């Protein structure tokens, strides 16, 4: 076992991990942050997306030991300071951007990464950016619509096909 220390949602945390412990497992099982979901466990579905040092990564495909010393942001740290939903989360609620909700944490974290780099993406750019996030309910239209709305763009013309 090796001791790792990292900043998770602004708080310093540490724990003992095996070499093979995934970042996703450390967050969920050691830190109790079960908002980060493990869907496929094969780097494809994106339900486990978190931010490590400010960029989106798949936490099921990164070792906890690799995140030693890093700053990690998860879905639990996304709400506003007063506990209200942030603009992306609120847009997902307003535009019905979730059905079963399993993929939602990864979708929100990917959306946050996209909007940080590209504050006013086109609909096509949103769809391309979500290539690594799979919604098993196939609810993509409203997810894309929610992200477009969160970017402050008018979404009335985007059909809920």
């Amino acid at each position, binding site marked *: 076992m*090796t001791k790792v220390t990292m900043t998770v949602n602004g708080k310093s945390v540490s724990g003992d991990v*095996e*070499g*093979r412990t*995934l970042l996703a497992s450390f967050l969920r099982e050691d830190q109790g942050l079960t908002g980060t979901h493990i869907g496929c*466990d*094969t*780097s494809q579905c*994106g339900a486990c*997306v978190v931010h490590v040092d400010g*960029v*989106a*990564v*798949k936490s099921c*495909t*990164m*070792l906890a*030991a*690799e995140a*030693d010393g890093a700053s990690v942001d998860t879905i639990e740290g996304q709400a506003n300071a007063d506990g209200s939903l942030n603009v992306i989360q609120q847009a997902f609620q307003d535009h019905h951007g979730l059905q079963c909700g399993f993929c939602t944490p990864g979708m929100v974290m*990917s959306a946050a*990464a*996209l909007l940080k780099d590209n504050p006013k993406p086109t609909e096509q750019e949103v769809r391309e*950016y979500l*290539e*690594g*996030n799979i919604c098993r309910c196939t609810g993509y239209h409203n997810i894309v619509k929610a992200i477009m709305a969160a970017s402050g763009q008018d979404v009335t013309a985007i059909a809920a096909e």
Partner: protein
Amino acid sequence: MYNFDVEKPGTIAEAATAMRVEDAQALGGGQTLIPTLKQRLAGPSKLVSLKGVAEMQGISKDGNTLRIGGATIHAAVAAEGSYSALAALAAHIGDPAVRNRGTIGGSLANNDPAACYPAAALASGATIVTNTREIAADDYFQGMFDTALDEGEIITAVSFPIPQAANYQKFVQPASRFALVGVFVAKYTDGVRVAVTGASNEGVFRWTEAETALSANFSATALDGLSVSPDNMITDLHGSATYRAHLVKVMTGRAVTAAS
């Protein structure tokens, strides 16, 4: 996964020392290796993470040569402007989260027969720089998942001569988004190089007949009389050898047109 130790050296010298342990395995971004470990297809005693080796990070341009550190992530290559065909290739590997972890050195060391970077390295006549020597791309790729790397050898950088014109065309396998067939065409003053990934049981290869034709006439029509043999092409549920052989010519033509 079987358990293993993780070591995080800060220099190439420390990494080389760490790799001397029996069954040690270099870890780039882990975007292929970690899924492989999960399936217990590998059981290293120790992973040597190269992410913290500062000398292996980043991109620099020296004259007409682009040098990319072995631990540089795909997203960084995608954002680099001096070799646009290479940047475009990097921008379509995996997905954004994968591109934030996966490294060029890791991709080339693994030499997946459907990976994109091997096509760019071979078509560009790149030089693979390791902790002990420099290897020409023509000598480096030795078959599916096989390279000239010795046990414990680490790719520290890759040097790309920047061509006059180049383009990469990837026909994606619709589920995995890996290349069903990918063709990288690069035009230099001394001739054209064409490298094909995804198609052959031998991994990435140069289509030399097309290189000769395109060096004389850099136009898709120069390929008209050529054909690609399906011998030794991959056949799987996504496409037959004949289909892949056909795609090689089609994608080469598209790459030439896009590069012209």
